[in-house]
Each structure stands twice: as C-alpha cells, then as structure tokens.
C-alpha cells in the first residue's frame, strides 16, 4: 500500500479513536473497564481496516508490516480495547493457510482470539481435543481461537458452542478477556511452518508497546512543562530533564527494534518458510517490553507524582497495559532465554 494512502488510513483512524469510545471517556468510568464500543467491529470492517493486512489476491489492501505497526502503535496510544493489533498481525498468518477465511475476517464475521494452552489432550477417538486456556486475548465476541499447544502445533477451534465453556475475566489493564475450556472440540490443525502464532501475537504486543510508551512519554513531557512548583516548571529542573532523557533513549531503541521487527515480518511474508526468514528480533524486542519499556513507564509515573498513580489518569492505564504486554505470549525471562550470542550477534 502506498504510504500516502496509508497516511489517510491513519488520519481516519485518529478521528475514529478520538470519537468512538475515546480513552478520556473510558477513564471517566474506570469501573466499567476498557470495553469495546458496540459499533467497533462493524466500524473496523466498513472502514476497511480489517482487510489491510491481506493481499490483493484475497481482496485485501496489502499493507506492509511497517504500516500495520504504525496503526497498531496508534491504537496503543489510545489504549484501544478492541484487539486490532492481534487481528492485523495474526489474521494474515491464518489467511496464508486458509485463504478461504479472508473475506469473513475482513468483514469482521470471524473474530480471532489467541491463547496459549498448557493442557491439550486428545480425546479417546483421537480426532477431538480437551484443552484449557487461562487467557484468551481477543474480543469477548471472538468466534474462533487460535490455540497454541505445548507441542508447538496450533489448532483453530471454535470460541463458542456446546463444547466450549467461557468464563469472563479482566486483564490487569481493564480489558475484557475470557478464560476458556474445550471438551471434545474438533480442532482444525494448522500446518504452518516458520514463526509460530504465539510469536506473531507477541509481535502485535511489541508494536502496541511502542505506541503506549510514546503516548505516555508525550503526556508526561507535556505535564512537566505545564506543572509549576516552587515557582518554576518541573521541566526546568535538571534532575527531571535527565530522567526524561533516559526514557527517551529507551523509547528510541524500542522504536528502532519495532522497525527492524517489521522488516523481518515483511521478509517472512515474502519468503514464507524459507530458512533464511525468521523473527530473530522478536525475543529481543519482546523482552525489551518488560526489561525497558515497563520500567520506563514506571519512571514516567514517578516524574508525574501523585496524579500518576491514580486510575483516573491515562498514565496508570498505559503502565498496566505494558505490564500485560510484557507478560503475555512469552514473558520476559522466557523471551530472554531465546537470546544468545550465536543467534543474535553472529548469525552468519
């Protein structure tokens, strides 16, 4: 997709996010949580955003990963409740194996959740499974779940029906999710090679993190310039300037890692399962969320003072969203255990 065309998408997205269940409104009623707007899925579909990541061949717009990452970052900066990031990164992965699902995904009739399950058992006749997932990230109205199994395989299963027991739950950051159990469900085993569905979902969280941290940084910078104590703005103090410079360094590195990860994702899409393609940057970028982005957001809370710890202010919600992003789909230590000199410093 042309960058100029994509800029129009971003403009439209900015308008929609400011108007439809904006973050400021959600903060007015925090007990309600970050709930999807009733019109969300039909809006996303009618604006064409759900078709952005698909190829022209299946009726999509062929947006590049770098473009998708910028839209995801925008959604992150608004702490959007609908799982746009997950859709934009994971749906094209599914469509590469199931081109027949592209249309339903683009229309929002199929809505994906992604989950990791530690317990997947075949039932006695072998064709069906029993499984459980504590966190299914995705819309509470998801129709399908991509279930990552302990053996590395991925099953596409129904998210509703007589074999599914769904329990509503909330994430730390107030988003609505579900815990699920499947009994005797017939899975559609996906024969994908290359990076796993969990790694794709993790990429979505990394791209979201860049938007969240950037928004938190901009908010704090503005506050520091406005807030006056002892007769001068907080921003005029060197102790505060230096801490903001520190966070800025982390933010720059995070954005650079995102750019590199998006580049790798583009290569994966072009080359499919060619041995040279992979998401080498992912464990580094994903562990960066917990190791750097989250502590950086903690610094921003510290710099903002008391207002920073209230649930009525944006910052707490950004912080909690980063905590979620750090934890899901390969936590910090797990991702770090995939990082090595041999793989990441001397690949050739």
């Amino acid at each position, binding site marked *: 997709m042309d960058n100029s065309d994509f800029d129009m998408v971003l403009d439209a997205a900015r308008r929609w996010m400011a108007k439809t269940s904006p973050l400021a409104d959600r903060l007015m009623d925090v007990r309600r949580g970050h709930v999807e707007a009733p019109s969300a899925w039909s809006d996303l579909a009618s604006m064409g955003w759900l078709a952005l990541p698909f190829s022209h061949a299946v009726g999509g717009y062929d947006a590049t990963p770098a473009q998708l990452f910028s839209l995801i970052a925008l959604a992150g900066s608004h702490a959007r409740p609908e799982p746009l990031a997950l859709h934009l990164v994971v749906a094209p992965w599914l469509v590469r194996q199931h081109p027949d699902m592209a249309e339903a995904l683009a229309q929002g009739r199929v809505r994906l959740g992604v989950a990791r399950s530690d317990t997947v058992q075949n039932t006695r006749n072998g064709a069906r499974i029993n499984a459980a997932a504590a966190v299914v990230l995705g819309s509470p109205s998801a129709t399908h779940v991509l279930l990552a199994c302990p053996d590395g395989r991925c099953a596409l299963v129904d998210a509703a029906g007589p074999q599914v027991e769904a329990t509503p739950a909330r994430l730390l950051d107030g988003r609505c999710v579900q815990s699920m159990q499947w009994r005797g469900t017939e899975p559609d085993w996906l024969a994908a090679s290359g990076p796993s569905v969990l790694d794709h979902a993790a990429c979505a969280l990394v791209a979201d993190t860049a938007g969240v941290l950037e928004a938190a940084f901009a908010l704090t910078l503005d506050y520091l310039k406005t807030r006056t104590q002892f007769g001068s703005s907080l921003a005029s103090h060197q102790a505060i*300037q*230096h801490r*903001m410079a520190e966070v*800025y360094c982390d933010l720059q590195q995070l954005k650079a890692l995102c750019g590199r990860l998006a580049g790798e994702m583009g290569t994966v899409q072009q080359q499919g399962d060619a041995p040279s393609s992979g998401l080498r940057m992912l464990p580094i970028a994903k562990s960066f969320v917990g190791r750097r982005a989250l502590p950086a957001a903690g610094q921003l809370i510290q710099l903002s003072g008391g207002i920073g710890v209230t649930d009525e202010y944006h910052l707490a919600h950004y912080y909690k969203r980063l905590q979620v992003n750090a934890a899901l789909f390969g936590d910090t230590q797990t991702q*770090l255990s995939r990082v090595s000199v041999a793989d*990441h410093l001397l690949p050739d």
Partner: protein
Amino acid sequence: MNILTSPELARFREEVRAFLKARLTPELVAATRSGPHVPRPLVARWQGLLHAQGWAAPHWPTAWGGTGWNEAQRYVFEEETALADAPLGDVLGLFLAGPLLIAEGSEQQKARFLPPILSGSTFWCQGFSEPGAGSNLASLTTSARLDGDSWVISGQKTWLTGGHEADMMFLLARTETQGRPQQGLSIFLVDMQSPGLSLRPILTMDEAHSVNALFLDEVRVPGDALVGTRGQGWQYAKDLLARERVNNAQAPRTKRDIVELDRLARTLQGPTGTPLIEDAGVLGTLAALVADFVALESAVIEVIALQVSGLEPGPIASTLKIRGSELQQRVTETAMDWLAERAVLLGASYGDPSPDPAARGWTERHLFRRVVTIYAGSNEIQKNIIAKSLLGM
C-alpha cells in the same frame, strides 16, 4: 532485512573478511586484545596496510583518499575489523583532525596534513580541554595573540590522548577577549616539537600512560596554522564533536567484546567445576547484554539509514552515545564479576598486567572504560542536549 543485510553488503563483508585474513597479523591481534592502548608503531603498521589497500580512511571524501563507501559499508567494515581484533587507527587523526581539515582547512593545509594521516606517518592529538574548562569548553583561557605574521600561544591543556606519541595537535585557543565566551575562539594546528611546549604524563587508573597534560609557554606558530576563519573555532569544534557522537556508540567494538565475554563464560569454571555458561544467572546476564546490544545496534542502524539517504541525524546521536558507553562499561563489569579473584591479581611492578591469560585485557579495558561515559561530551551533557534540543525542556 535491514540496511546492513543486503546481498551487496554480504559480498562486501566477504571482501573485508578476505583482506583481514590475508593481512592482519597475529602480532596486531595480540596487541589489540591486550588492552585499550596499542603502541604507535603497531597502529602505524596497521594503518600502512590499510593505506596500501586504499582503505585508510573510509569516511573521508574520495578526493582526499576516502573509499566512496556509504555509511552502511563503513559500519560493516568497522564491525569486521572489530570482530577480527584489528587495532583502531589513529582515531584523533582519522576521525577528528582529518574531517576538521577537510571541512575547514585551506587547500595548503589539506595537501600537507591529510596524506600523512592516511599513510600512518603522522599522528595527531587534540588540545581542547583545560583544567578549568571541561564540559564548559567555551570558558577556556589558553590565548593566541597575533605577533607580526605568527601566533603566540600560551596556556595549559589537559586530557591529550596520545599527546606523547603525536606529531601534530589541533588546538582550541582564545583569540578575542570581547563578546560571548563562544565567540572569541579559533583552532590552530601546532607542531608538537614547537619550542615552549611541554608535556606531563597523566597516569590513568589502568596504570597506563595514554593521556597528558600540556603546557604552552609563548609557543610561536606560523600565521597559516590558523584553521578556517579566526573566531569560528567554537562552531568548528561543535561540528566536530557532533560527528564524533555517532562514532562513539562504539557498537562494533562492543559486539566484539560480548562475543569475547561469551567465550570467557565457556572457559571459566564455576565453584562446582562446571563451565560458567551452564549457570542460569550467567546465561541471563549474557542474554541481557546481547539484547541491549541489539537494541543499541538497531538505533545505530536507523541513524545509518538516515545518513545513507543524505540526512544528518542531529541530536538523536546523543542517545547512541549514552547507551553505547553505558553498555561498554557493563560488558567489562560483567567480565570482572566472572573473573573475580583472577581479575584483581596483577604482576609485581606498576603497570604489569595480570599473570592470568584469561584476565588479560579485561582488567585494563574495564578500568580505562570508566572514561567512556565522561569523554566526548559526558553522558550528563548528552542528556542536557536531549532535554533542550529534542524535548524542549
């Protein structure tokens, strides 16, 4: 795929590796590995080998002996030379004096001074800092006054890296006493053999002599020793230090050190006799260093991509200097931690290295590297730059 992984660059990388395999001698490798200071004769020999290959100063314009490589190729070159343990050249000449002369020098100055930098026959040092003017460089007091058709310079300079081995110095001195402190400064090229000029060694905490104090007592230099326009020295110095900042991420050398650290963890044994690398804590520390290196490298790649497309990175380079220097220190701190007792035992006389080959080079680098967060604009100054120039605070 990023700017460093194109097929063309892969071929270029092979070319560099082939050169290093053919020309880099074990003696040069050993000198590079033994610590942060490689003696001038060895640096000169390496520079001569590069010069013979036409690779003496890749970042200079081709008209003055540059290679015509873009920033990505230059980075690959630096990476491969670092991984092969090739010495750095005369950094002061190649990265500071040379670019300064190319940007601001007269044609005569360029013709006279640039070729011997390329060949490794002339070494340079920098006379900027003074006892009373460190981070606040503009407050310097060393003065240069015109006397007939020559300049007479008096004052005191400090932190002259390689001053005792250098032939020439570029020096910042006050030529005007009126106006703002920044306005009255000029840069001069000074022969280190000039009468009235004396050096005193400063021993750094790694027990080595690489920096010096300098005293200038009525040192007379010819009129054509002035660089560019009188009074423009501050602007020239600022441009020079900004160029230095991207370079000071030192990512390729840090990459080499992390690879070496990985080897160290496979060589050393823990208390139970198993290799250190099998310890979960050690593995985690190493992975964190790799991750932070790749984050730094990614930011460097973004800056290189800007440069390749003809844009100046500007103050964003300050983030590279901060994070790059911090990481350099963390790497050797980790080595010291793992080497433990072996890293704190030295030979009997002052300046003798550790008798333990495993520790050699690490101890010296570790101690000397306390300086990397201080020199080239301390990290606190870099944070001031970020806060003021980028964040508008």
